[in-house]
Protein backbone atom coordinates (compact mmCIF):
# COMPACT_ATOMS: atom_id res chain seq x y z
CA UNK A 1 0.00 0.00 0.00
CA UNK A 2 2.77 2.40 1.02
CA UNK A 3 4.72 1.60 -2.11
CA UNK A 4 1.67 2.00 -4.31
CA UNK A 5 0.89 5.40 -2.80
CA UNK A 6 4.51 6.48 -3.17
CA UNK A 7 4.46 5.34 -6.80
CA UNK A 8 1.23 7.20 -7.49
CA UNK A 9 2.60 10.43 -6.03
CA UNK A 10 5.76 10.10 -8.14
CA UNK A 11 3.53 9.35 -11.12
CA UNK A 12 1.42 12.46 -10.56
CA UNK A 13 4.59 14.52 -10.23
CA UNK A 14 6.04 13.16 -13.47
CA UNK A 15 2.59 13.56 -15.04
CA UNK A 16 2.56 17.25 -14.01
CA UNK A 17 5.78 17.78 -15.92
CA UNK A 18 4.54 15.88 -18.96
CA UNK A 19 1.20 17.71 -18.86
CA UNK A 20 2.94 21.10 -18.98
CA UNK A 21 5.35 20.15 -21.74
CA UNK A 22 2.59 18.49 -23.77
CA UNK A 23 0.28 21.47 -23.21
CA UNK A 24 2.91 23.79 -24.69
CA UNK A 25 3.42 21.45 -27.61
CA UNK A 26 -0.29 21.08 -28.30
CA UNK A 27 -0.93 24.86 -28.11
CA UNK A 28 1.84 25.43 -30.66
CA UNK A 29 0.54 22.65 -32.87
CA UNK A 30 -3.01 23.95 -32.67
CA UNK A 31 -2.09 27.38 -33.92
CA UNK A 32 0.97 26.89 -36.13
CA UNK A 33 0.14 23.42 -37.41
CA UNK A 34 3.79 22.52 -36.86
CA UNK A 35 4.88 19.53 -34.75
CA UNK A 36 7.55 21.43 -32.88
CA UNK A 37 10.46 19.01 -32.52
CA UNK A 38 12.55 21.76 -30.87
CA UNK A 39 10.25 21.82 -27.85
CA UNK A 40 12.36 19.32 -25.86
CA UNK A 41 15.53 21.26 -26.59
CA UNK A 42 13.93 24.49 -25.37
CA UNK A 43 12.87 22.62 -22.21
CA UNK A 44 16.58 21.87 -21.69
CA UNK A 45 17.59 25.51 -22.30
CA UNK A 46 14.97 26.58 -19.75
CA UNK A 47 16.54 24.34 -17.11
CA UNK A 48 20.04 25.70 -17.79
CA UNK A 49 18.92 29.33 -17.57
CA UNK A 50 17.36 28.70 -14.18
CA UNK A 51 20.51 26.80 -13.13
CA UNK A 52 22.74 29.77 -13.94
CA UNK A 53 20.36 32.26 -12.33
CA UNK A 54 20.21 30.18 -9.15
CA UNK A 55 23.72 28.71 -8.88
CA UNK A 56 25.90 31.35 -10.57
CA UNK A 57 23.99 34.49 -9.62
CA UNK A 58 22.63 33.21 -6.33
CA UNK A 59 19.05 34.11 -7.16
CA UNK A 60 16.30 32.52 -5.06
CA UNK A 61 14.56 29.51 -6.65
CA UNK A 62 11.37 31.34 -7.56
CA UNK A 63 13.28 34.21 -9.15
CA UNK A 64 15.20 31.66 -11.23
CA UNK A 65 11.91 30.14 -12.33
CA UNK A 66 10.48 33.49 -13.40
CA UNK A 67 13.68 34.56 -15.17
CA UNK A 68 13.70 31.29 -17.12
CA UNK A 69 10.00 31.70 -17.94
CA UNK A 70 10.49 35.22 -19.30
CA UNK A 71 13.65 34.45 -21.28
CA UNK A 72 12.14 31.35 -22.88
CA UNK A 73 8.96 33.27 -23.70
CA UNK A 74 11.13 35.76 -25.58
CA UNK A 75 13.17 33.01 -27.26
CA UNK A 76 9.92 31.36 -28.37
CA UNK A 77 8.67 34.58 -29.97
CA UNK A 78 12.04 35.14 -31.67
CA UNK A 79 12.27 31.60 -33.04
CA UNK A 80 8.77 31.79 -34.45
CA UNK A 81 9.51 35.13 -36.07
CA UNK A 82 12.97 34.39 -37.49
CA UNK A 83 13.06 30.65 -38.09
CA UNK A 84 9.57 29.24 -38.56
CA UNK A 85 7.62 32.08 -40.17
CA UNK A 86 9.26 31.84 -43.63
CA UNK A 87 8.05 28.24 -43.93
CA UNK A 88 4.29 28.51 -43.36
CA UNK A 89 3.45 28.47 -47.06
CA UNK A 90 6.14 25.88 -47.88
CA UNK A 91 5.77 22.07 -47.93
CA UNK A 92 5.29 20.55 -44.52
CA UNK A 93 8.56 18.67 -44.61
CA UNK A 94 10.60 21.90 -44.67
CA UNK A 95 9.54 23.00 -41.21
CA UNK A 96 10.36 19.54 -39.84
CA UNK A 97 13.86 19.77 -41.20
CA UNK A 98 14.33 23.31 -39.96
CA UNK A 99 13.35 22.04 -36.52
CA UNK A 100 16.00 19.33 -36.81
CA UNK A 101 18.54 22.03 -37.72
CA UNK A 102 17.53 24.06 -34.67
CA UNK A 103 17.95 21.04 -32.42
CA UNK A 104 21.49 20.59 -33.73
CA UNK A 105 22.27 24.26 -33.16
CA UNK A 106 20.80 24.61 -29.66
CA UNK A 107 21.84 21.27 -28.24
CA UNK A 108 25.42 21.47 -29.43
CA UNK A 109 25.69 25.06 -28.25
CA UNK A 110 24.66 23.81 -24.82
CA UNK A 111 27.10 20.92 -25.05
CA UNK A 112 30.01 23.14 -26.13
CA UNK A 113 29.33 25.91 -23.63
CA UNK A 114 28.34 23.90 -20.60
CA UNK A 115 29.73 20.39 -21.16
CA UNK A 116 28.02 17.01 -20.94
CA UNK A 117 28.17 16.70 -17.14
CA UNK A 118 25.05 16.40 -15.02
CA UNK A 119 24.04 19.40 -12.97
CA UNK A 120 21.41 20.05 -10.36
CA UNK A 121 20.21 22.97 -8.28
CA UNK A 122 18.80 22.90 -4.79
CA UNK A 123 15.09 22.81 -4.08
CA UNK A 124 13.60 25.86 -2.31
CA UNK A 125 12.74 23.65 0.64
CA UNK A 126 14.23 20.33 1.67
CA UNK A 127 11.44 19.43 4.08
CA UNK A 128 10.04 15.93 3.99
CA UNK A 129 6.41 15.43 4.85
CA UNK A 130 5.14 12.12 6.17
CA UNK A 131 1.60 11.20 5.18
CA UNK A 132 0.08 7.77 5.83
CA UNK A 133 3.52 6.20 6.18
CA UNK A 134 4.74 7.74 2.94
CA UNK A 135 7.63 10.19 2.75
CA UNK A 136 6.97 13.07 0.36
CA UNK A 137 9.57 15.75 -0.30
CA UNK A 138 8.28 19.30 -0.36
CA UNK A 139 9.59 19.74 -3.92
CA UNK A 140 7.23 17.03 -5.17
CA UNK A 141 4.29 18.93 -3.70
CA UNK A 142 5.61 22.18 -5.20
CA UNK A 143 5.79 20.55 -8.64
CA UNK A 144 2.29 19.13 -8.44
CA UNK A 145 0.64 22.28 -7.08
CA UNK A 146 2.49 24.78 -9.29
CA UNK A 147 1.77 22.74 -12.41
CA UNK A 148 -1.91 22.47 -11.57
CA UNK A 149 -2.18 26.21 -10.86
CA UNK A 150 -0.32 27.13 -14.04
CA UNK A 151 -2.41 24.83 -16.23
CA UNK A 152 -5.55 26.36 -14.66
CA UNK A 153 -4.20 29.89 -15.37
CA UNK A 154 -3.51 29.03 -19.02
CA UNK A 155 -7.04 27.66 -19.27
CA UNK A 156 -8.49 30.87 -17.79
CA UNK A 157 -6.28 32.95 -20.07
CA UNK A 158 -7.61 31.22 -23.17
CA UNK A 159 -11.25 31.16 -22.10
CA UNK A 160 -11.65 34.48 -20.28
CA UNK A 161 -9.39 37.06 -21.90
CA UNK A 162 -9.70 38.78 -25.27
CA UNK A 163 -6.17 37.76 -26.27
CA UNK A 164 -6.86 34.17 -25.27
CA UNK A 165 -10.08 34.08 -27.28
CA UNK A 166 -8.21 35.46 -30.28
CA UNK A 167 -5.66 32.64 -29.94
CA UNK A 168 -8.42 30.06 -29.70
CA UNK A 169 -10.18 31.56 -32.71
CA UNK A 170 -6.98 31.43 -34.73
CA UNK A 171 -6.46 27.77 -33.87
CA UNK A 172 -10.03 26.90 -34.82
CA UNK A 173 -10.11 28.76 -38.12
CA UNK A 174 -7.22 31.02 -39.16
CA UNK A 175 -9.05 32.46 -42.19
CA UNK A 176 -12.13 33.26 -40.15
CA UNK A 177 -9.97 34.84 -37.45
CA UNK A 178 -8.22 36.95 -40.06
CA UNK A 179 -11.57 38.19 -41.37
CA UNK A 180 -12.54 39.17 -37.82
CA UNK A 181 -9.52 41.45 -37.70
CA UNK A 182 -7.26 39.24 -35.62
CA UNK A 183 -3.55 39.67 -36.29
CA UNK A 184 -2.71 36.02 -36.93
CA UNK A 185 1.05 36.57 -37.03
CA UNK A 186 0.95 38.05 -33.53
CA UNK A 187 -1.14 35.17 -32.26
CA UNK A 188 1.36 32.68 -33.64
CA UNK A 189 4.28 34.45 -31.99
CA UNK A 190 2.54 34.78 -28.63
CA UNK A 191 1.41 31.15 -28.65
CA UNK A 192 4.91 29.96 -29.49
CA UNK A 193 6.18 32.06 -26.59
CA UNK A 194 3.60 30.72 -24.13
CA UNK A 195 4.17 27.11 -25.20
CA UNK A 196 7.93 27.49 -24.82
CA UNK A 197 7.59 29.21 -21.44
CA UNK A 198 5.45 26.29 -20.21
CA UNK A 199 8.21 23.84 -21.16
CA UNK A 200 10.76 26.02 -19.35
CA UNK A 201 8.69 26.11 -16.15
CA UNK A 202 8.27 22.34 -16.27
CA UNK A 203 12.03 21.93 -16.55
CA UNK A 204 12.74 24.31 -13.67
CA UNK A 205 10.18 22.56 -11.48
CA UNK A 206 11.81 19.14 -11.87
CA UNK A 207 15.33 20.60 -11.90
CA UNK A 208 15.93 19.80 -8.20
CA UNK A 209 14.62 16.23 -8.63
CA UNK A 210 15.95 15.12 -12.01
CA UNK A 211 19.31 16.00 -13.54
CA UNK A 212 20.15 18.78 -16.00
CA UNK A 213 22.23 17.85 -19.07
CA UNK A 214 22.18 18.77 -22.78
CA UNK A 215 20.26 15.65 -23.90
CA UNK A 216 17.64 15.87 -21.11
CA UNK A 217 14.92 16.89 -23.57
CA UNK A 218 15.11 13.80 -25.81
CA UNK A 219 12.89 11.44 -23.89
CA UNK A 220 10.60 14.23 -22.67
CA UNK A 221 9.85 15.46 -26.20
CA UNK A 222 9.18 11.88 -27.29
CA UNK A 223 6.78 11.42 -24.38
CA UNK A 224 5.10 14.76 -25.11
CA UNK A 225 4.43 13.64 -28.67
CA UNK A 226 3.07 10.33 -27.39
CA UNK A 227 0.75 12.32 -25.12
CA UNK A 228 -0.58 14.74 -27.71
CA UNK A 229 -1.10 11.95 -30.21
CA UNK A 230 -3.11 10.01 -27.63
CA UNK A 231 -4.98 13.13 -26.53
CA UNK A 232 -5.57 14.44 -30.04
CA UNK A 233 -3.12 16.91 -31.61
CA UNK A 234 -4.13 20.45 -30.67
CA UNK A 235 -6.49 19.43 -27.85
CA UNK A 236 -6.01 21.26 -24.52
CA UNK A 237 -7.76 18.76 -22.26
CA UNK A 238 -6.24 15.82 -24.16
CA UNK A 239 -2.70 17.05 -23.50
CA UNK A 240 -3.33 17.64 -19.78
CA UNK A 241 -5.15 14.36 -19.09
CA UNK A 242 -2.76 12.45 -21.37
CA UNK A 243 0.19 13.95 -19.50
CA UNK A 244 -1.04 12.70 -16.12
CA UNK A 245 -2.01 9.30 -17.52
CA UNK A 246 1.36 8.70 -19.21
CA UNK A 247 3.25 9.99 -16.16
CA UNK A 248 1.42 7.60 -13.82
CA UNK A 249 1.66 4.74 -16.33
CA UNK A 250 5.41 5.24 -16.71
CA UNK A 251 6.01 5.19 -12.95
CA UNK A 252 3.81 2.10 -12.53
CA UNK A 253 5.65 0.23 -15.29
CA UNK A 254 8.99 1.23 -13.80
CA UNK A 255 8.06 0.12 -10.27
CA UNK A 256 6.15 -3.04 -11.03
CA UNK A 257 7.28 -4.43 -14.39
CA UNK A 258 10.71 -3.33 -15.56
CA UNK A 259 12.87 -0.29 -15.06
CA UNK A 260 15.01 -1.08 -18.07
CA UNK A 261 12.48 -1.15 -20.87
CA UNK A 262 9.91 1.43 -19.66
CA UNK A 263 10.56 3.83 -22.54
CA UNK A 264 10.66 1.01 -25.09
CA UNK A 265 7.28 -0.24 -23.82
CA UNK A 266 5.58 3.17 -23.89
CA UNK A 267 6.94 4.21 -27.31
CA UNK A 268 6.19 0.72 -28.65
CA UNK A 269 2.59 0.98 -27.38
CA UNK A 270 2.21 4.29 -29.22
CA UNK A 271 3.33 2.72 -32.49
CA UNK A 272 0.78 -0.05 -31.93
CA UNK A 273 -1.93 2.50 -31.15
CA UNK A 274 -1.16 4.33 -34.39
CA UNK A 275 -1.43 1.03 -36.23
CA UNK A 276 -5.01 0.69 -35.04
CA UNK A 277 -5.94 4.37 -35.19
CA UNK A 278 -3.57 6.26 -37.52
CA UNK A 279 -4.69 9.66 -36.19
CA UNK A 280 -4.51 8.84 -32.49
CA UNK A 281 -7.23 8.07 -29.98
CA UNK A 282 -9.25 11.26 -30.36
CA UNK A 283 -7.96 12.53 -33.69
CA UNK A 284 -10.24 13.03 -36.66
CA UNK A 285 -9.77 10.53 -39.51
CA UNK A 286 -7.71 11.69 -42.49
Amino acid at each position, binding site marked *: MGILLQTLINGIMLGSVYAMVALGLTLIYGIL*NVPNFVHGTLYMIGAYIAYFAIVSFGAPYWVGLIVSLIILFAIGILLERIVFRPFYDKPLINSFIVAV*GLILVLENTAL*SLWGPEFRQFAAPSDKVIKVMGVMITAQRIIVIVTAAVLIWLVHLFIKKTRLGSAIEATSQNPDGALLMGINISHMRGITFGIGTALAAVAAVLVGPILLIYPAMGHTVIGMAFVIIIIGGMGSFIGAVLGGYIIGILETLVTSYITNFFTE*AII*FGLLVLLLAVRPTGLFGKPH
Partner: protein
Amino acid sequence: MDKKRKALCLGVLILIILIIPLFIKDEYYLHILVMSGIWIISALSLNLILGYAGQLNLAQGTFFGIGAYATGLLMQKMGLSFWAALPLGCLLTATIGFVTGLPTLRTRGHYFPIATMCLGIAIYYVIARWDDVTGGARGLFGLPRPDPIVIPFLGTISFESTASCYYLVSFLVFITIVVIHRLITSLSGKRLIAIRGNEDLAQALGINTMRDKVICFTISTFFAGLAGGVFASYMGSLMAENAHFVTSFEMLLNVMIGGVGTIIGPIIGAIFLPLLSEELHFLGGWRLVVYGLILILTIRFLPFGIVGGIRTALAKRHDKRGV
Protein backbone atom coordinates in the same frame (compact mmCIF):
# COMPACT_ATOMS: atom_id res chain seq x y z
CA MET B 1 23.80 13.93 -73.93
CA ASP B 2 23.87 10.91 -76.20
CA LYS B 3 24.39 7.41 -74.94
CA LYS B 4 28.01 7.10 -76.05
CA ARG B 5 29.15 10.22 -74.23
CA LYS B 6 27.23 9.18 -71.14
CA ALA B 7 28.93 5.77 -71.14
CA LEU B 8 32.31 7.44 -71.63
CA CYS B 9 31.76 9.80 -68.69
CA LEU B 10 30.68 6.89 -66.52
CA GLY B 11 33.77 4.90 -67.58
CA VAL B 12 36.11 7.77 -66.73
CA LEU B 13 34.39 8.25 -63.37
CA ILE B 14 34.73 4.57 -62.50
CA LEU B 15 38.40 4.66 -63.53
CA ILE B 16 39.02 7.68 -61.28
CA ILE B 17 37.32 5.93 -58.38
CA LEU B 18 39.44 2.82 -59.00
CA ILE B 19 42.79 4.61 -59.09
CA ILE B 20 42.21 7.06 -56.23
CA PRO B 21 43.98 4.85 -53.62
CA LEU B 22 47.12 4.86 -55.81
CA PHE B 23 47.41 8.61 -55.36
CA ILE B 24 46.15 9.13 -51.85
CA LYS B 25 48.94 7.84 -49.67
CA ASP B 26 47.61 9.40 -46.49
CA GLU B 27 45.65 6.62 -44.78
CA TYR B 28 43.54 9.19 -42.99
CA TYR B 29 42.06 10.67 -46.16
CA LEU B 30 41.35 7.19 -47.45
CA HIS B 31 39.54 6.54 -44.19
CA ILE B 32 37.38 9.62 -44.79
CA LEU B 33 36.56 8.29 -48.26
CA VAL B 34 35.49 4.94 -46.80
CA MET B 35 33.25 6.78 -44.33
CA SER B 36 31.86 8.85 -47.20
CA GLY B 37 31.00 5.62 -48.99
CA ILE B 38 29.11 4.35 -45.95
CA TRP B 39 27.30 7.69 -45.65
CA ILE B 40 26.45 7.59 -49.38
CA ILE B 41 24.70 4.24 -48.96
CA SER B 42 22.76 5.44 -45.93
CA ALA B 43 21.92 8.82 -47.49
CA LEU B 44 20.62 7.07 -50.63
CA SER B 45 18.51 4.80 -48.43
CA LEU B 46 16.91 7.78 -46.67
CA ASN B 47 16.52 9.61 -49.96
CA LEU B 48 14.55 6.68 -51.38
CA ILE B 49 11.81 6.97 -48.75
CA LEU B 50 12.05 10.76 -48.22
CA GLY B 51 12.90 12.05 -51.67
CA TYR B 52 10.75 9.72 -53.77
CA ALA B 53 7.90 8.53 -51.55
CA GLY B 54 7.87 11.82 -49.60
CA GLN B 55 7.89 10.18 -46.15
CA LEU B 56 10.28 11.65 -43.56
CA ASN B 57 11.45 8.57 -41.70
CA LEU B 58 13.16 9.75 -38.50
CA ALA B 59 14.03 6.14 -37.59
CA GLN B 60 16.38 5.65 -40.54
CA GLY B 61 19.43 6.06 -38.27
CA THR B 62 17.97 3.41 -36.00
CA PHE B 63 17.76 0.98 -38.91
CA PHE B 64 21.41 1.78 -39.63
CA GLY B 65 22.04 0.80 -36.01
CA ILE B 66 20.00 -2.40 -36.30
CA GLY B 67 22.01 -3.46 -39.37
CA ALA B 68 25.25 -2.62 -37.59
CA TYR B 69 24.38 -4.50 -34.40
CA ALA B 70 22.87 -7.46 -36.28
CA THR B 71 25.96 -7.89 -38.48
CA GLY B 72 28.31 -7.36 -35.54
CA LEU B 73 26.50 -9.80 -33.24
CA LEU B 74 26.16 -12.46 -35.96
CA MET B 75 29.93 -12.32 -36.43
CA GLN B 76 30.88 -12.08 -32.76
CA LYS B 77 28.31 -14.28 -31.01
CA MET B 78 27.38 -16.73 -33.77
CA GLY B 79 30.86 -16.91 -35.30
CA LEU B 80 29.55 -16.29 -38.79
CA SER B 81 31.79 -14.98 -41.54
CA PHE B 82 31.27 -11.35 -42.57
CA TRP B 83 30.04 -12.49 -45.96
CA ALA B 84 27.20 -14.42 -44.34
CA ALA B 85 26.58 -11.96 -41.50
CA LEU B 86 26.19 -8.89 -43.73
CA PRO B 87 23.38 -10.22 -45.96
CA LEU B 88 21.65 -11.79 -42.94
CA GLY B 89 21.99 -8.50 -41.06
CA CYS B 90 20.46 -6.60 -43.98
CA LEU B 91 17.63 -9.12 -44.26
CA LEU B 92 16.95 -8.86 -40.54
CA THR B 93 16.90 -5.05 -40.77
CA ALA B 94 14.55 -5.21 -43.75
CA THR B 95 12.30 -7.66 -41.88
CA ILE B 96 12.10 -5.32 -38.90
CA GLY B 97 11.56 -2.50 -41.41
CA PHE B 98 8.67 -4.39 -42.98
CA VAL B 99 7.06 -5.27 -39.64
CA THR B 100 7.38 -1.73 -38.26
CA GLY B 101 6.56 -0.11 -41.60
CA LEU B 102 3.13 -1.72 -41.65
CA PRO B 103 1.85 0.20 -38.60
CA THR B 104 3.79 3.45 -39.04
CA LEU B 105 3.01 3.90 -42.75
CA ARG B 106 -0.70 3.85 -41.99
CA THR B 107 -0.17 7.33 -40.55
CA ARG B 108 0.06 10.37 -42.77
CA GLY B 109 1.21 13.96 -42.74
CA HIS B 110 2.49 15.08 -39.35
CA TYR B 111 1.94 11.72 -37.77
CA PHE B 112 4.50 9.75 -39.78
CA PRO B 113 7.68 11.59 -38.64
CA ILE B 114 6.39 11.51 -35.06
CA ALA B 115 5.52 7.81 -35.23
CA THR B 116 8.93 6.94 -36.69
CA MET B 117 10.70 9.13 -34.14
CA CYS B 118 8.92 7.20 -31.35
CA LEU B 119 9.79 3.92 -33.07
CA GLY B 120 13.42 5.01 -33.22
CA ILE B 121 13.46 5.94 -29.52
CA ALA B 122 11.86 2.60 -28.57
CA ILE B 123 14.42 0.55 -30.53
CA TYR B 124 17.29 2.75 -29.32
CA TYR B 125 16.36 2.02 -25.71
CA VAL B 126 16.17 -1.72 -26.42
CA ILE B 127 19.71 -1.60 -27.84
CA ALA B 128 21.05 0.68 -25.11
CA ARG B 129 19.61 -1.36 -22.22
CA TRP B 130 19.74 -4.98 -23.42
CA ASP B 131 23.10 -5.56 -21.73
CA ASP B 132 23.32 -9.34 -22.24
CA VAL B 133 23.09 -9.13 -25.99
CA THR B 134 24.18 -5.69 -27.18
CA GLY B 135 26.58 -4.82 -24.39
CA GLY B 136 24.25 -1.96 -23.42
CA ALA B 137 25.81 1.41 -22.78
CA ARG B 138 29.33 -0.03 -22.91
CA GLY B 139 28.88 -0.88 -26.57
CA LEU B 140 30.26 -3.71 -28.68
CA PHE B 141 33.99 -4.13 -29.23
CA GLY B 142 36.44 -6.22 -31.21
CA LEU B 143 34.31 -6.83 -34.29
CA PRO B 144 36.37 -8.46 -37.04
CA ARG B 145 37.10 -6.98 -40.45
CA PRO B 146 35.65 -8.90 -43.44
CA ASP B 147 37.27 -12.33 -43.86
CA PRO B 148 39.79 -12.67 -46.69
CA ILE B 149 38.42 -13.99 -49.97
CA VAL B 150 40.43 -16.84 -51.45
CA ILE B 151 40.47 -16.93 -55.24
CA PRO B 152 41.93 -20.21 -56.53
CA PHE B 153 45.30 -19.79 -58.34
CA LEU B 154 45.24 -15.98 -57.98
CA GLY B 155 45.73 -15.56 -54.26
CA THR B 156 43.68 -14.01 -51.48
CA ILE B 157 42.08 -10.61 -51.00
CA SER B 158 42.35 -9.50 -47.43
CA PHE B 159 40.52 -6.54 -45.93
CA GLU B 160 43.02 -5.43 -43.33
CA SER B 161 44.15 -2.31 -45.20
CA THR B 162 42.03 0.82 -45.57
CA ALA B 163 42.51 0.71 -49.35
CA SER B 164 40.92 -2.76 -49.60
CA CYS B 165 37.97 -1.54 -47.51
CA TYR B 166 37.74 1.44 -49.85
CA TYR B 167 37.28 -0.91 -52.80
CA LEU B 168 34.74 -3.02 -50.93
CA VAL B 169 32.69 0.04 -49.94
CA SER B 170 32.94 1.49 -53.47
CA PHE B 171 31.61 -1.77 -54.85
CA LEU B 172 28.66 -1.71 -52.42
CA VAL B 173 27.98 1.95 -53.24
CA PHE B 174 27.91 0.98 -56.91
CA ILE B 175 25.41 -1.85 -56.23
CA THR B 176 23.23 0.51 -54.16
CA ILE B 177 23.17 3.16 -56.88
CA VAL B 178 22.30 0.60 -59.57
CA VAL B 179 19.47 -0.96 -57.55
CA ILE B 180 17.97 2.36 -56.44
CA HIS B 181 18.32 3.86 -59.91
CA ARG B 182 16.53 0.86 -61.45
CA LEU B 183 13.83 1.13 -58.82
CA ILE B 184 13.04 4.81 -59.26
CA THR B 185 13.12 4.74 -63.06
CA SER B 186 10.74 1.76 -63.06
CA LEU B 187 6.98 2.04 -62.99
CA SER B 188 6.92 1.64 -59.22
CA GLY B 189 9.27 4.63 -58.96
CA LYS B 190 6.72 6.69 -60.85
CA ARG B 191 4.04 5.47 -58.47
CA LEU B 192 6.17 6.56 -55.49
CA ILE B 193 6.56 10.04 -56.98
CA ALA B 194 2.79 10.16 -57.45
CA ILE B 195 2.36 9.31 -53.76
CA ARG B 196 4.81 12.07 -52.83
CA GLY B 197 2.82 14.55 -54.90
CA ASN B 198 -0.63 13.72 -53.57
CA GLU B 199 -1.35 10.48 -51.81
CA ASP B 200 -5.15 10.74 -52.01
CA LEU B 201 -5.01 11.47 -55.72
CA ALA B 202 -2.61 8.56 -56.29
CA GLN B 203 -5.00 6.29 -54.45
CA ALA B 204 -7.94 7.57 -56.47
CA LEU B 205 -6.01 6.68 -59.64
CA GLY B 206 -5.92 3.08 -58.49
CA ILE B 207 -2.45 2.97 -56.96
CA ASN B 208 -2.23 0.75 -53.93
CA THR B 209 -0.35 3.44 -52.01
CA MET B 210 0.05 1.40 -48.84
CA ARG B 211 1.67 -1.50 -50.73
CA ASP B 212 4.07 0.78 -52.59
CA LYS B 213 5.01 2.68 -49.45
CA VAL B 214 5.68 -0.52 -47.50
CA ILE B 215 7.84 -1.96 -50.29
CA CYS B 216 9.79 1.30 -50.57
CA PHE B 217 10.21 1.51 -46.79
CA THR B 218 11.42 -2.10 -46.59
CA ILE B 219 13.98 -1.62 -49.38
CA SER B 220 15.21 1.63 -47.86
CA THR B 221 15.72 -0.04 -44.47
CA PHE B 222 17.60 -2.86 -46.23
CA PHE B 223 20.16 -0.37 -47.53
CA ALA B 224 20.32 1.48 -44.21
CA GLY B 225 21.15 -1.92 -42.68
CA LEU B 226 23.79 -2.50 -45.37
CA ALA B 227 25.51 0.78 -44.51
CA GLY B 228 25.32 -0.13 -40.81
CA GLY B 229 26.72 -3.64 -41.35
CA VAL B 230 29.73 -2.36 -43.28
CA PHE B 231 30.23 0.36 -40.66
CA ALA B 232 30.28 -2.26 -37.87
CA SER B 233 32.93 -4.40 -39.54
CA TYR B 234 35.05 -1.47 -40.71
CA MET B 235 35.05 0.40 -37.40
CA GLY B 236 35.31 -2.72 -35.25
CA SER B 237 33.20 -1.26 -32.43
CA LEU B 238 29.66 0.02 -31.93
CA MET B 239 27.94 2.31 -29.46
CA ALA B 240 24.22 2.49 -28.77
CA GLU B 241 24.46 6.11 -30.02
CA ASN B 242 24.93 4.70 -33.53
CA ALA B 243 21.25 3.71 -33.40
CA HIS B 244 20.09 7.07 -32.03
CA PHE B 245 18.08 9.59 -33.99
CA VAL B 246 21.21 11.73 -34.13
CA THR B 247 22.34 9.28 -36.83
CA SER B 248 19.06 9.95 -38.65
CA PHE B 249 19.81 13.67 -38.42
CA GLU B 250 23.23 13.15 -39.95
CA MET B 251 21.71 11.24 -42.87
CA LEU B 252 19.12 13.96 -43.27
CA LEU B 253 21.87 16.58 -43.48
CA ASN B 254 23.63 14.69 -46.26
CA VAL B 255 20.41 14.25 -48.23
CA MET B 256 19.08 17.78 -47.83
CA ILE B 257 22.34 19.64 -48.44
CA GLY B 258 23.21 17.51 -51.46
CA GLY B 259 19.74 17.71 -52.95
CA VAL B 260 16.70 15.65 -51.96
CA GLY B 261 14.87 13.62 -54.60
CA THR B 262 17.88 13.11 -56.89
CA ILE B 263 20.43 10.30 -56.99
CA ILE B 264 23.47 12.54 -57.34
CA GLY B 265 22.40 14.93 -54.54
CA PRO B 266 22.81 12.60 -51.54
CA ILE B 267 26.10 11.36 -53.04
CA ILE B 268 27.44 14.92 -53.25
CA GLY B 269 26.17 15.63 -49.73
CA ALA B 270 27.77 12.49 -48.29
CA ILE B 271 31.15 13.34 -49.87
CA PHE B 272 31.01 17.09 -49.21
CA LEU B 273 29.95 17.04 -45.55
CA PRO B 274 32.62 14.66 -44.18
CA LEU B 275 35.26 16.73 -46.02
CA LEU B 276 33.77 19.94 -44.61
CA SER B 277 33.75 18.27 -41.23
CA GLU B 278 37.53 17.75 -41.52
CA GLU B 279 38.02 21.42 -42.38
CA LEU B 280 35.89 22.41 -39.40
CA HIS B 281 37.67 20.11 -36.99
CA PHE B 282 39.23 23.04 -35.14
CA LEU B 283 35.73 24.09 -34.09
CA GLY B 284 35.33 21.03 -31.86
CA GLY B 285 31.77 20.70 -30.60
CA TRP B 286 30.74 23.89 -32.42
CA ARG B 287 31.03 21.96 -35.69
CA LEU B 288 27.52 20.55 -35.26
CA VAL B 289 26.20 24.02 -34.45
CA VAL B 290 27.57 25.18 -37.81
CA TYR B 291 25.98 22.12 -39.43
CA GLY B 292 22.61 23.01 -37.95
CA LEU B 293 22.90 26.58 -39.24
CA ILE B 294 23.90 25.31 -42.69
CA LEU B 295 20.87 23.00 -42.66
CA ILE B 296 18.47 25.82 -41.74
CA LEU B 297 19.95 28.19 -44.34
CA THR B 298 19.91 25.47 -46.99
CA ILE B 299 16.21 24.78 -46.46
CA ARG B 300 15.49 28.51 -46.44
CA PHE B 301 17.41 29.51 -49.56
CA LEU B 302 18.22 26.27 -51.43
CA PRO B 303 15.34 23.89 -50.64
CA PHE B 304 16.69 21.38 -53.16
CA GLY B 305 20.27 21.58 -51.95
CA ILE B 306 23.43 21.94 -53.98
CA VAL B 307 22.00 20.04 -56.96
CA GLY B 308 18.83 22.14 -56.96
CA GLY B 309 20.92 25.32 -56.80
CA ILE B 310 23.08 24.26 -59.76
CA ARG B 311 19.99 23.32 -61.77
CA THR B 312 18.34 26.67 -61.13
CA ALA B 313 21.53 28.49 -62.10
CA LEU B 314 21.85 26.45 -65.31
CA ALA B 315 18.21 27.04 -66.20
CA LYS B 316 18.69 30.80 -65.73
CA ARG B 317 21.72 30.82 -68.03
CA HIS B 318 19.78 28.80 -70.56
CA ASP B 319 16.88 31.27 -70.43
CA LYS B 320 19.20 34.22 -70.97
CA ARG B 321 20.73 32.61 -74.02
CA GLY B 322 17.29 31.81 -75.39
CA VAL B 323 16.35 35.49 -75.24
